[in-house]
């Protein structure tokens, strides 16, 4: 079994370890990912602020390329790990399948370049694929190094479940909690898990810090609440969220007189750890800080530095 794979721009930059850990996890579960040939930017949240039709056309080219790579009549699942890309591809697929003047214009523009979107390709998030296609039972079996009650905050952010709730609830999603619980973790109850981290306005460039004060405060509130609820690590599904929550903890501590020190990784890195994959395979060496409680000393509370 293998899926078409849309990395998105951040997977080649700040989110490199998302791609690495995703490939490692899927590989360990016997599922392949075939990178879409010559994919382009999804349009993110920046392009629709300037031109809605062109933003849709950008995503539509990717969907058309995915169909082109899998000729036939069946559906084509395009796995998009970045929540921003996922939402953009999903939105475009729906808009173009629904007909109307915009769909006709975008279809015409694709045609001008020799491309066609038939409506077969649809975006899937890897969290959805893992929970609903591969299944929790198989993942629990494959978890040879369970996470031993690691208390994890599962952060969904905004765009994975909003506005479209394709595989989970918009207000109280549970997929990630169920997945990481199957890997032996102990998800904490964290109602803020779908609140915006402040990063999505950066459209693929988190360093840009369009409104650094706002982002710092929004991210800080999330982490403060997660820590109060006992989280020892945060699992994310989006390279922008991951970056915002990880990279500015020092600044948060200075600004808000705090001591936030949380490992913020991709959910695939935590899952991969449970599957017994090496830290290098999961891109852990790329994290700015990563410190999970040592399972062997779980009772004593000792920490090991990765």
């Amino acid at each position, binding site marked *: 079994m293998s899926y078409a794979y849309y990395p998105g721009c951040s997977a080649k*930059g700040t989110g490199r370890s998302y791609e690495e850990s995703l490939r490692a996890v899927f590989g360990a579960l016997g599922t392949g990912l075939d990178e879409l040939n010559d994919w382009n930017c999804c349009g993110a949240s920046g392009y629709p602020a300037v031109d809605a039709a062109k933003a849709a056309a950008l995503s539509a080219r990717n969907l058309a390329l995915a169909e082109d790579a899998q000729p036939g009549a069946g559906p084509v699942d395009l796995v998009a790990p970045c929540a921003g890309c996922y939402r953009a591809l999903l939105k475009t697929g729906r808009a173009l399948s629904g007909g109307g003047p915009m769909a006709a214009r975008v279809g015409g523009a694709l045609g001008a370049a020799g491309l066609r979107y038939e409506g077969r390709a649809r975006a899937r998030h890897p969290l959805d694929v893992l929970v609903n296609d591969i299944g929790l039972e198989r993942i629990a079996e494959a978890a040879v190094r369970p996470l031993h009650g690691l208390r994890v905050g599962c952060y969904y952010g905004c*765009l994975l479940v909003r506005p479209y709730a394709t595989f989970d609830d918009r207000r109280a999603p549970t997929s990630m909690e169920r997945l990481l619980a199957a890997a032996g973790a102990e998800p904490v109850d964290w109602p803020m898990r779908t609140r915006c981290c402040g990063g999505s306005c950066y*459209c693929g460039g988190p360093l840009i810090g369009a409104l650094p004060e706002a982002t710092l405060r929004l991210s800080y509130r999330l982490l403060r609440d997660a820590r109060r609820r006992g989280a020892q690590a945060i699992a994310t599904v989006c390279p922008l969220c991951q970056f915002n929550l990880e990279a500015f903890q020092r600044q948060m501590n200075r600004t808000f007189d705090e001591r936030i020190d949380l490992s913020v990784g991709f959910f695939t890195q935590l899952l991969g750890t449970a599957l017994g994959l090496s830290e290098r395979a999961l891109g852990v060496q790329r994290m700015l800080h990563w410190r999970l409680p040592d399972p062997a000393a779980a009772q004593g509370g000792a920490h090991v530095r990765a």
Partner: protein
Amino acid sequence: MGFSSPQLATTQAARAADRVLPQFCIQCGTCSVVCPLIEYMDHSPRVLNAMLTAGSHEEVLHSRAIWVCTSCYACTVECPKQLPLTESIYALKRESLRTGTYPRRFITPVLARQFVRTVDRHGRSSEAWLSLALYLRTRPLQLVRYAPVALRLMLRGRLPLRHESVRRPAQVRKVLEALDATTTGEHA
């Protein structure tokens, strides 16, 4: 949407805002309550709707609020009238860029345009180059503040300086240019 007050049809900006809806807004304020960025806005989402209904389109188009929105869709999901609030803010952003009414000294419109230029040229975005271009354009002195984080990322291979590009930029351009040719005045 079907009906509109006489004021709502006066200008092009008004027509865009009209598509967006606020005449159905019941002013319950749910959007403002769930908006994570409200404290950074000059007008709350509820007030924006009130202003649009009252015909203050120009003022809305000049506001920072629409450019503070991160499009997280919290308001859209919670609106009891199911108004497409996030999409309406996107429409207002486009309208404010097109009519030149966006706040000149605010950073997010510059970012959106820079992002579009980058994607038009390369077919992909580059975090490093996009960030650099934006800082140089808006506040070069801040570069110093973020240099340590950038350096730590580079050392970990997370901020490559090579600009990713599609292999067939001409094809991407062709798709985008075809849309330039068929502009129908449809901006929403």
